[in-house]
């Protein structure tokens, strides 16, 4: 072997290394977009479906770019293409794996899409970083939606998104075990306990609700809301006030006492968490589970006969009201095609056929009232989930919500495993207020 040969080999190696080093140090997304998101879109638009977890690369040659997650991409691109044909433009729908983060990062450096599809609780964070633009919604259009849907899309008195679906928790039951729906929590516990006793060990839990060792504030909230408690007080205009935390208000404490009681009875346990709650229900281990619309698909797959009903009422309080989540189309503040993007979200996303198509793909109740009515007529699940969230308030979209998840979840978990509700929720209140003050 000669010296020269070695040199040549080294050179070719270095060529590769040097290039990879450059690529590695640049913050630009290096994923190359390839392939079509769907057969129908591949024909007319160069829609991208990246195979890695990187952010999609914005297509320079189209008139409108939409980012969404993989679940929604197919449907969104179908009607985005229709919109493109109607207006004589080219539309690309791209899949962003971690849509929220990737949208924020890409928009910051001017590489984001014109439109992004996401949940309403991202809003505060997106406004904070100036990544979404206000949308002007005429009053007659807003009236076609339930009031809470646009309330969720508002931040500092300005509307930032167009709703297409709503989602919330409800009570799902295994009809083979529990044929009728319980109205109250006491009824539920009595029914569940009897079913468990009769089953000869097959049923392990009276009811399933993800708690986990560190708790889950999202599932805790309905207990607080049943007594008029909650997380933040609302301002006169319906927005949440981050300076008024009500985690230790009398109503919230009453809710915490119910958690404590259920914990003592063994109905709620920190050994059931996000990782196993659905699996246990789908294995027939419990007659009841508190879950959102995402749970129906797996229950069907597991051949569980189920029915969905309202969350139960709590003794001494009202009905448990879950958080309402609203799915939105946002327009980027750095949109390169702002006019088309605004046109798309205000006049196209609000169409009944579009909302129904998204409903068929996702199984969430449509936000548009007309579309919902049509969906509810054919799909009992959608009707049941919508009814369960009919009077509920939107999940807070203010950035201060980031300071709540940890302390409130842990407080609930501790109460369920035996700590004193009043003391523990007082501590959580103190911690949340301190976190918010830190900014």
């Amino acid at each position: 072997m000669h010296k020269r040969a070695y040199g040549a080999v080294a050179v070719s190696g270095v060529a590769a290394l040097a290039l990879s080093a450059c690529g590695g140090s640049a913050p630009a997304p290096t994923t190359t977009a390839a392939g079509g998101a769907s057969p129908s879109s591949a024909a007319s638009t160069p829609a991208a479906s990246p195979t890695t977890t990187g952010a999609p690369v914005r297509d320079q040659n189209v008139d409108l770019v939409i980012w969404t997650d993989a679940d929604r991409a197919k449907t969104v691109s179908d009607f985005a293409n229709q919109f493109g044909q109607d207006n004589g433009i080219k539309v690309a729908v791209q899949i962003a794996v971690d849509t929220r983060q990737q949208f924020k990062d890409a928009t910051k450096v001017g590489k984001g899409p014109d439109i992004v599809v996401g949940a309403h609780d991202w809003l505060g964070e997106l406004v904070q970083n100036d990544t979404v633009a206000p949308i002007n919604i005429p009053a007659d259009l807003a009236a076609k939606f339930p009031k809470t849907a646009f309330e969720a899309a508002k931040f500092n008195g300005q509307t930032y998104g167009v709703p297409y679906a709503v989602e919330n928790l409800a009570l799902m039951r295994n009809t083979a075990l529990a044929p009728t729906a319980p109205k109250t929590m006491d009824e539920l516990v009595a029914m569940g306990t009897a079913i468990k006793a009769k089953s000869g060990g097959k049923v392990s839990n009276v009811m399933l609700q993800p708690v986990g060792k560190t708790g889950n504030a999202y599932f805790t909230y309905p207990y607080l809301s049943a007594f008029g408690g909650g997380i933040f007080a609302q301002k006169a205009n319906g927005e949440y006030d981050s300076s008024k935390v009500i985690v230790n208000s009398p109503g919230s404490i009453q809710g915490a006492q119910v958690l404590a009681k259920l914990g003592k009875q063994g109905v709620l346990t920190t050994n059931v968490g996000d990782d196993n709650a659905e699996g246990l229900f789908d294995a027939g281990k419990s007659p009841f589970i508190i879950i959102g619309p995402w749970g129906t698909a797996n229950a069907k797959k597991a051949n569980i006969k189920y029915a969905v009903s309202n969350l139960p009422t709590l003794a001494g309080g009202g009905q448990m009201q879950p958080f309402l989540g609203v799915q939105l189309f946002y327009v980027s503040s750095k949109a390169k095609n702002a006019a088309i993007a605004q046109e798309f979200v205000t006049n196209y996303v609000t169409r009944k056929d579009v909302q129904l198509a998204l409903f068929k793909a996702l199984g969430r109740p449509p936000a548009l009232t007309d579309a919902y009515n049509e969906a509810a007529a054919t799909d009992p699940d959608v009707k049941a989930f919508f009814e369960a969230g009919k009077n509920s308030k939107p999940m807070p979209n203010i950035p201060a919500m980031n300071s709540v998840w940890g302390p409130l979840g842990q407080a609930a978990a501790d109460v369920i495993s035996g700590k004193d509700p009043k003391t523990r929720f007082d501590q959580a209140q103190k911690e949340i207020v301190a976190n918010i003050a830190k900014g």
Partner: protein
Amino acid sequence: MSQATKSSPADQVSTPTPLWATVVKWLALAVVVVATVLLSGRLADQGYGLYIVLAAMVAMAVLAVYATRRNVPAKYLLPGLVLLLGLQVWPIVMTVSTAFTNYGDGHAISKEESIAAIVRSSVKEVPGSPRYQLSVAVPEGAPVATGDAVYLLTAPDGSVKLGTKDGLRDLPAAGVEKSATGKITKAPGYRILNAREINARKDLTQFAVPVPGGGGIKASGLSAAFEGKATVTYDAATDTLKDTSTGKTYVAKDAFWMPQDGQGQGFPQGWKENVGLKNFQTILADPTIRAGFLMIFTWNIVFAALSVITTFVLGMLLALLFNDERLKGKGFYRAVLVLPYAIPGFVTALLWASMFNQEFGLVNSITGLGIDWLGNAWAAKAAILITNLWLGFPYMFLICTGALQSIPTDVREAAKIDGASPLRTLRSIIMPLLLVAVGPLLIASFAFNFNNFGLIFLLTGGGPFEAANTSIGSTDLLITYAFRLAFSGVAPNFGLAAAVSIFIFFIVALMSYTGFRRTKGLEEVN
């Protein structure tokens, strides 16, 4: 190859170069040049000026080093040097520079951008104002892309108006055609733009037809317009924002616009600025951080040390066992033992998390212990060490097997002849030789486990937590603690996180330095 590396520069002159090597070399160099040009093109498209310069410098360095016969040492050093700069030095520079800023959510844009964003998002529809059907047009004959844009508007009562940059007036109705929805499709003297043409006019985002009262008619999409008015204005002279709807004045404070009178809330859009040593002060002064630090730091060291010791002891014992000549089918056993190492760590961690479940987990159902593995502070620590033992011993097994096989058999035979017992041989002969070989790897393993974010995050999330403080977990490492500290406030604070990671860097560096000094001592003994 090894022959080639040993040859001296003198050989290089004397040995003739084969043709194929020269061809391959110049081809590879050509590839570098072409690739650099392509890369620069892409970078230029995306507006990364600095990176073009960097790419060009790397390419020039490659040419200067490999195209010439000089710089032989650089031929070997360059790849490592480039990687060192790109993957080590560059991130460190970025981290350090971030540590002196308040960069994070709510502080991601510049002050000018924050003013623009606040003013822009304060534009609200004037109550009771009409909403128009809109067609965008240019005067007949004017260029579509640059001609003065006008808005052809249809009011709700059906009357047609003409909006220009000077104001709103009536449009002569003669010859005007409208669609079924009322949108003007034809107006004499004007050329109506289609969707793509409107979109191409980036100036239209700033365009508004001025109306009395200070507002303006703005487009909403392609076919509608509304009368909007910005309620917030910026006064550059006093550097304040004024909200005309409430009469409040906002001043710049802590990189946010806060009300001057201190009452109520400021605007959410803050800006990024230099904060000097504030992040470092926060770390040293914040009572929560100080209280948690000592406890977490102690556990962090214990965790890293115990992880290394337990995995090393188990790995070494197994390696000794499987190094015995009398054992049959060693290859098979070794392959099986390496399996935990071959499964992705995060899968294993999640699997163990479910196995440690108090009620449904495998561990309790086999042992019948009923321990609340993930809910009790001490049990959770044990659970983490057990999981890490499972994850880590194959690595130690591998390196020990390698090191054992490199220990010459004659030393062992000599010990045997001298009458040393197997245990004595192990203690006095094999262990010292083994430790010289694997010592630096143990330190590396310590440093790795010191920052073993993934395991903690997936298994316990740092929990269980002390009642009143959910930012300090009983299984937290400094790195998971820093993560929570930076991201559990109202807004993720990358500046603070960067400052914490600089502290962690110094701690790990100090301990590694001491460790390496020790192993050096070990070598000298031998």
